[in-house]
C-alpha cells in the first residue's frame, strides 16, 4: 500500500499521496481507453494528413515555396502553424468526452462508488487528456524536425520554445474541453461546444475588436496567443502575454469544471 504520509490542504480538497497514486491509476486507464479506441486512429490520420500536406505541397511547388522555407527556423515555423488545430482536435476528441462519457456509458456507477475522491478522478482524467494530445503533438514535432534535417541538415533550438507554447495551448484547450465535458449531458454537445468556442468565438471577437479598436493588441484572445506557437520560432518575442492567455483560458474553466464536478450527482 502506498504511504499516505503527506497531505496538502484541509477537508474536502486535501490531497494525499494515495490520492495522487489513484490519479495516476485513473490516468493510465484513460490513456488505455484512448489508445484502444477508434478516435486515436482518426487523430493520427488527421495529423498524418497535415504533415503530408505540409511536406508534400512545398516540395511540389518548390519554386513558389523555396524562398519561404530556406532556413531551419522557417521550416519549423511553417510546420508549427498547424499545431493549434491539432491541439483543438485532441481536445475535441478526448477531453470533451472524458467526464460526460462516464455518465453516458454508466461506468460512473463502477468508478464513483470506489473509495476515490472526485478530485482524484478529475485530475486523473485531465492528466490523460493532456498526455494523449501532448504525445501526438510531440510525434508531429519529431516528424517536423526530420523535415528540417532533410532540407537544411539541422533543427533550430527554438523548436523547444514552440513545444513549450504548444504545451501551454494543450493545457488551455484541454481545460476548456474538460469544463464542457463536466457540464454537458452528451459528449457530442460537449465536443461541439469546445470546437465552436475555440474556433469561432475568438475569431469573431478578433474581427469585431479589429473594427472597434483598429490596431489594438488583443493578446488575451486564444487565437492570437496560438499564433505564438509558430512565431516564437522567428525573431525574439515576449512569451509572457501568450502564456498568461493560455493559463487563464485553461485554468478558469478547469477550476469551474472541478467545482461543478464535486457537486455533480448521478
Amino acid at each position, binding site marked *: 500500500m502506498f504511504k499516505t504520509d503527506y497531505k496538502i490542504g484541509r477537508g474536502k480538497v486535501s490531497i494525499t499521496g494515495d490520492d495522487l497514486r489513484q490519479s495516476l491509476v485513473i490516468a493510465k*486507464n484513460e490513456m488505455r481507453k484512448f489508445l484502444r479506441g477508434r478516435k486515436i486512429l482518426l487523430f493520427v490520420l488527421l495529423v498524418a494528413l497535415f504533415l503530408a500536406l505540409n511536406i508534400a505541397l512545398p516540395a511540389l511547388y518548390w519554386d513558389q515555396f523555396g524562398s519561404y522555407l530556406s532556413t531551419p527556423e522557417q521550416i519549423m515555423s511553417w510546420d508549427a502553424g498547424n499545431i493549434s488545430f491539432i491541439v483543438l482536435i485532441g481536445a475535441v476528441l478526448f477531453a470533451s468526452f472524458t467526464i460526460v462519457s462516464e455518465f453516458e456509458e454508466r461506468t460512473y456507477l463502477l468508478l464513483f462508488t*470506489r473509495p476515490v475522491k472526485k478530485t482524484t478522478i478529475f485530475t486523473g482524467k485531465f492528466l490523460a487528456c493532456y498526455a494523449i494530445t501532448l504525445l501526438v503533438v510531440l510525434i508531429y514535432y519529431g516528424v517536423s524536425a526530420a523535415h528540417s534535417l532533410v532540407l537544411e541538415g539541422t533543427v533550430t533550438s527554438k523548436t523547444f520554445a514552440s513545444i513549450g507554447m504548444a504545451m501551454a495551448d494543450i493545457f488551455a484547450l484541454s481545460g476548456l474541453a474538460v469544463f464542457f465535458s463536466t457540464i454537458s449531458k452528451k459528449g457530442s454537445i460537449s465536443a461541439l461546444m469546445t470546437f465552436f468556442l475555440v474556433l469561432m468565438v475568438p475569431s469573431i471577437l478578433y474581427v469585431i475588436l479589429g473594427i472597434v479598436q483598429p490596431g489594438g493588441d488583443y493578446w488575451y484572445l486564444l487565437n492570437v496567443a496560438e499564433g505564438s506557437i509558430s512565431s516564437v520560432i522567428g525573431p525574439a518575442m515576449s512569451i509572457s502575454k501568450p502564456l498568461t492567455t493560455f493559463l487563464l483560458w485553461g485554468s478558469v474553466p478547469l477550476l469551474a469544471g472541478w467545482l461543478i464536478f464535486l457537486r455533480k450527482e448521478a
Partner: protein
Amino acid sequence: MGNPIEIIGLVKRYGDFTAVNSLSLSIKKNSFTGLLGPNGAGKSTTLKMLTHLINATSGEAYINGVDVTRDPKGALTGVGTVVETPEFYTYLTPVETFELLGQLIGMTGEAIAAQTSSILEMVKMTEWSDKKIGTFSKGMRQRIALGQAFLGDPSVIILDEPTSGLDPRGMAEMREVLKNIRNGRDVTVVMSSHMLHEVSDLCDHVAILNHGKLILDDTIDAVTSRSGTRQIIIKLDHVPTADDVAKVAAIPGTLSASRLGNEIEAKMSSECARSPELFKAVSNLGIGAYNLYENESLEATYLSLIKESR
C-alpha cells in the same frame, strides 16, 4: 456505534420532493438485509447516498464508523458495491477490470491476481477472463459486477437491485451466487430489491421503506410470523375434492383450509406449520398429497404495511 452501517436521520430532498425522510436504520454485523419498498420508496436513493453517488441533504450515514457524508473515501474503504446495472469499460477484459479496481484500492499485483481467479471462478466467468467485456451479455456483465464487489475482501457489500433487468436464467444464476455470498466470509450485506421472494430467499433481515420512511425493520422470521399464522400449500395428484379439504382442515393446529386451483391452501398456527409432524399428518390423510411447502407470508405483511403507510 458497533454496527457496520448506521444511518441517522438521513434526508434527501429534490426541491419540494422529499425522497428520503429522516431515515434511521442500523444494519447488524454479518447480516444480509433486504431493503424493500415500492417504486419511489427511497431504496435506491438511500443506497446511492451510502455509496456517495448523491449527496445527502442532511443526516449522517456511517459505514464502519466513518460518516460517508463527510469522508466518502474513508467510508467506502472496505466496501463492495453493485449499484443498478453498472456498465464496464468495454475495452477491458474482466482480468484488466479487476486489476484497475484492485489498483485503485491499493491492492498489490499478487493479491489482485490471486483474488481475480477465485472470484471469477465463484461467478462462473473463468473461461471469459481474457475476453473484452464489450462482447458480454447483460447477465455476464452482472456476474462480473457482483464479482468485483468482492475484490479486496470487503466487510460490507451494498447491492442495489442486483438481479434487475436479467432474464429468468440470469436471475436464477445471480441468486445462486448471492445465496453463497457469505460462505465462510465475515461480511455484512445490504440489498435492495423489488422481489419479495428474492429477499425472503436470501436475506435474514428486512427493512421496508415507503415514501422515504422506514416502516419496518426486523428479521425475516419475525416478519413472516407477525400474524401468528402461516400459509401451507399442499399439492395433490388430483383436483382436490371437498372431502380432501375437510380432511386437511381437521389436522390439529389448522385454522382454515380451502381449495386453491389444483392445490389446497391451509392456514395453520406457526407451531403446527413448522412441525416435522405435519408431513406425517398430511401423508396419513390418504388424499394423494405429494408435496407441501410454506407460502412465505412476507408478501402479506409487506402489502398490509404499505397500505397502512399510504
